[in-house]
């Protein structure tokens, strides 16, 4: 199937009643999650994970992808209107966005951001469409040893570049891997670390783990301070029209942000957040109006917002083509696919073309839906900001409890949610990174599977892990990144700004 045929086939998959509804529901939920403080895309996807189990694999993934990039759109609304980024990827947007709001340009800026997000998301979607099949074709050459290198190496890189110190990444990663070993072992059905508890034989439930780590821990931080949110200004539809000079100045940042975001999305780490920081710095370096950036320049919002959506979209490529999630949000999508019995990876294209092409086509349809939702419905999103904490927090907590319990009808999962929420709160206080824990938890069974298969097929010859050119190439890249910390050094520079702006939050 050629790329064009595949895309047309994907459009046929998406343009069904159920899948369109899934895209719309995901985009709506994602935007709301992005707007409201206390929930990020990771926790949002996790809460709605049980709902996606009842859908077809393609509809479930389309909905989760919609939540992920919808949250990037929504996160910018609070950043611009009340200087409170809904997502960590919108932190940079708040600097210039809020300055422009104070000058009475809120409506125009929101439109510039929505158009930029649309352009970044759509062009990145086209990139995913062209790049993923090539990547999948290449990955057909991979055997268990190569996949072991990719999963284990990717996890190691993620733990080192997620931010913070060596311990802040490796310790949570090891905890996530350890939690993934709880339950019945798949080959010999041996119970591991179940302590005789029947509910633990199926392992720790990912929805409970992630909602606790990301959702409850974040809500505890909100409760701790419980400051009154500043009242957002009202924005009417008429004010949403950007000025001609604003549009003219936004085009170059749109282009640069799209390219930057697309590349970041293909790499391990919190790509949407990182790319928005990188884009901001790039604009400060190359823009003709760089002296205005930081004091209310359109380039300071157009670039980062375009790039975070482009990154959120292109992060689907490694997931779809390799079956490797490089962030917590895509890790959840991988987990959901596995619940449906769909094994993501290079064979996804041939075994489940409806999932592969359906999701790719949904990236484009979803961005159109989001553009439609974000410009005319801006009043609705602004009104969400007026919901007081004492109404919003109980609602989210009950929703989280329903989400945790309903997957397996197990009270144990509800207690796991509470326990991991408290652990996540403390770890975040001490600047430990939570994404390696989630990705480690999801990748743990895959790493073990690939390791055992490789040893089995090589009759116990451990040199299988470093004998093929692909495995050598992957491990060399991992060693180089780990040793020289190329991405890490870049992240630190970017993180310097991030830490000054906000506490660590939900980076997908």
């Amino acid at each position: 199937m050629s790329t064009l045929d595949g895309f047309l086939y994907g459009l046929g998959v998406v343009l069904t009643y159920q899948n369109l509804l899934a895209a719309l529901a995901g985009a709506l939920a994602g935007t709301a999650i992005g707007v409201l403080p206390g929930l990020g895309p990771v926790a949002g996807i996790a809460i709605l994970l049980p709902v996606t189990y009842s859908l077809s694999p393609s509809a479930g993934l389309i909905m989760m992808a919609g939540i992920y990039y919808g949250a990037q759109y929504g996160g910018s609304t609070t950043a611009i209107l009340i200087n409170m980024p809904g997502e960590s990827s919108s932190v940079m947007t708040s600097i210039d966005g809020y300055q422009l709001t104070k000058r009475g340009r809120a409506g125009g800026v929101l439109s510039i951001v929505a158009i930029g997000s649309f352009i970044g998301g759509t062009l990145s979607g086209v990139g995913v469409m062209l790049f993923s099949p090539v990547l999948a074709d290449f990955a057909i050459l991979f055997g268990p040893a190569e996949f072991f290198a990719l999963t284990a190496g990717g996890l190691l890189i993620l733990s080192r570049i997620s931010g913070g110190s060596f311990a802040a990444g490796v310790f949570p990663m090891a905890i996530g891997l350890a939690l993934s070993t709880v339950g019945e072992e798949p080959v010999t059905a041996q119970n591991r670390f179940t302590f005789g508890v029947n509910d633990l034989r199926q392992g720790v439930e990912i929805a409970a783990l992630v909602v606790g780590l990301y959702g409850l821990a974040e809500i505890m931080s909100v409760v701790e301070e419980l400051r009154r949110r500043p009242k957002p200004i009202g924005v009417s539809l008429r004010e949403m029209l950007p000025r001609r000079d604003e549009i003219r100045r936004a085009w170059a940042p749109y282009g640069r942000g799209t390219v930057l975001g697309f590349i970041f999305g293909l790499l391990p780490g919190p790509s949407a957040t990182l790319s928005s920081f990188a884009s901001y710095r790039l604009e400060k370096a190359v823009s003709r109006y760089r002296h205005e950036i930081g004091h209310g320049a359109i380039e300071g919002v157009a670039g980062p917002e375009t790039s975070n959506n482009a990154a959120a979209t292109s992060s689907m490529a490694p997931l779809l083509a390799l079956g490797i999630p490089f962030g917590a949000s895509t890790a959840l999508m991988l987990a959901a696919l596995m619940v449906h019995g769909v094994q993501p990876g290079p064979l996804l294209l041939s075994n489940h073309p409806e999932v592969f092409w359906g999701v790719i086509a949904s990236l484009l349809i979803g961005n159109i839906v989001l553009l439609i939702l974000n410009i005319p419905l801006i009043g609705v999103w602004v009104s969400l900001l007026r919901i007081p904490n004492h109404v919003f927090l109980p609602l989210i907590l009950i929703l989280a409890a329903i989400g945790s319990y309903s997957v397996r009808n197990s009270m144990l999962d509800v207690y796991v949610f509470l326990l991991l929420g408290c652990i996540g709160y403390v770890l975040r206080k001490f600047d430990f990174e939570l994404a390696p824990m989630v990705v480690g938890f999801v990748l743990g069974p895959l790493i073990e599977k690939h390791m055992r298969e490789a040893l089995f097929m090589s009759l116990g010859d451990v040199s299988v892990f470093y004998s093929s050119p692909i495995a050598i190439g992957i491990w060399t890249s991992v060693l180089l990144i780990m040793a020289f910390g190329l991405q890490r050094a870049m992240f630190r520079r970017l993180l310097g700004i991030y830490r000054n702006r906000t506490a660590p939050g939900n980076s997908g």
Partner: protein
Amino acid sequence: MSGAPVRKRTGYLAIGGIGVLLAAAYLGMALQMPFGRLSQPGAAVFPLIVGGLLVVGSLATIWEGWKTGPAERVEFPAGADRARLLGVVGLLLGYFVALPWLGQLLSSTLFCILLMRLLSSLAWPRVALYSILITGTLYAVFIHLLGVPMPRGVLAG
């Protein structure tokens, strides 16, 4: 907000120490599982590698704690902020204990009422009204419409 500062060093040493204990217990249990052979690895092999990583991560945490200057602090909530935070955790625990007995609708309504009172200064009748609206809506959407299975408790008869 007046916080209760905790030394970062103390936190890291405590987290690393707990990590070492967990790793020791984890490795102890892993050692009792079958090893298999290299050509057919048993259930113990992967947990032993993970246990090793946990030891490395925990020792790194202790090392970084040791190297952290005594002046570095992490702010934890104090006074009313701490009481409110602990109140939320306590209410959640109570909610989860009550959930199987009282069922989703009743326990959620009670939890919502108490949490709203904790987070606001609204009068009881308003709190009760909001709580019934919130939990009623969630019940209608998730349990009634989407058929999400939740404990029904005493209401199930």
